[in-house]
């Protein structure tokens, strides 16, 4: 199973509800939320589930991305990813699925 990073852009204007709805759906598909942005969430998903998420009614566009270690805030982004991942892994142990902030 190959896991990749995807940038999701929601259809129309992003609201807190739409963002949470997409994040919940990604978690339901076995994906992880790396970061929430003003366009939509940045997620880690398996190739198999990527097509399922891309077909969600709220998803406008979804494209594969990767982290450039030479980016200006690459280290900072890695910290954000690690922090959000650690929250989800703890929540997963409890059997609850709250979206990342």
């Amino acid at each position, binding site marked *: 199973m190959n896991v990749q990073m995807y940038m999701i852009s929601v259809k129309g204007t992003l609201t807190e509800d739409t963002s949470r709805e997409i994040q919940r759906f990604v978690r339901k598909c076995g994906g992880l939320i790396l970061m929430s942005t003003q366009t939509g969430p940045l997620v880690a998903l398996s190739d198999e589930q990527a097509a399922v998420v891309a077909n969600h009614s709220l998803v406008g*566009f979804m494209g594969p991305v990767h*982290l450039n270690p030479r980016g*200006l*805030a690459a280290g900072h*982004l890695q910290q954000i990813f690690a922090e959000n991942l650690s929250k989800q892994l703890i929540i997963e142990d409890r059997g609850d699925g709250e979206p990342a902030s």
Partner: protein
Amino acid sequence: MGLGATVGADLLAVPFPKMILSMAQAISKGQMALDMASLQTLKVLANTKFDFIPEFTEVLTPKPLPPVSIGGGQTVTPTGVNVDFTKSPAVKLTMIQAGILPTFYQFTESIIEVKMSISSKVESQSEFEFGASLEVSADFLFGSATFSSHVNYKTSNTYSYSAEGSSLLRTTLKPTPPPGRMMPKFITVNALVQPPVITTSE
């Protein structure tokens, strides 16, 4: 036409040029769709802003604490520390500037595999049967004889031919570095020093 010629003709009938053309066209279309998707991702990333706080400053200053008695008439003065924490104003960066880049893909290898199984069988069978009988009888005044014979000839030819084929098209897709002309360059002009320093990065 002999059987060998038939098999050869069947092998020649496999539409290799058409298969290769179809595959090449499919790869070309697929590559274009993938590139368009990556460019669309690039646009989304370029329009997504990210609040980046470049610096956190911690200033440690001494904060003397009252001496603590440790028994035996001795005292120790703990070293207290004041920590002043400040953060620099957030800078708006695009996701590309921050370090998220679209992934581009490339078809690196394509294979067309055609398997054919041709079998042909010819069976020829002949049967020849000959029989003859002679019967002779005689009594006081008469004698008679009968003679009979038969010939049976049976021949059969069976011809069977079967051809089975399967084809496999396999292609490998790999991530590739973004094309240089498609990715923006970041030019930083540092005017804090004289003369200003210009740094270009991708």
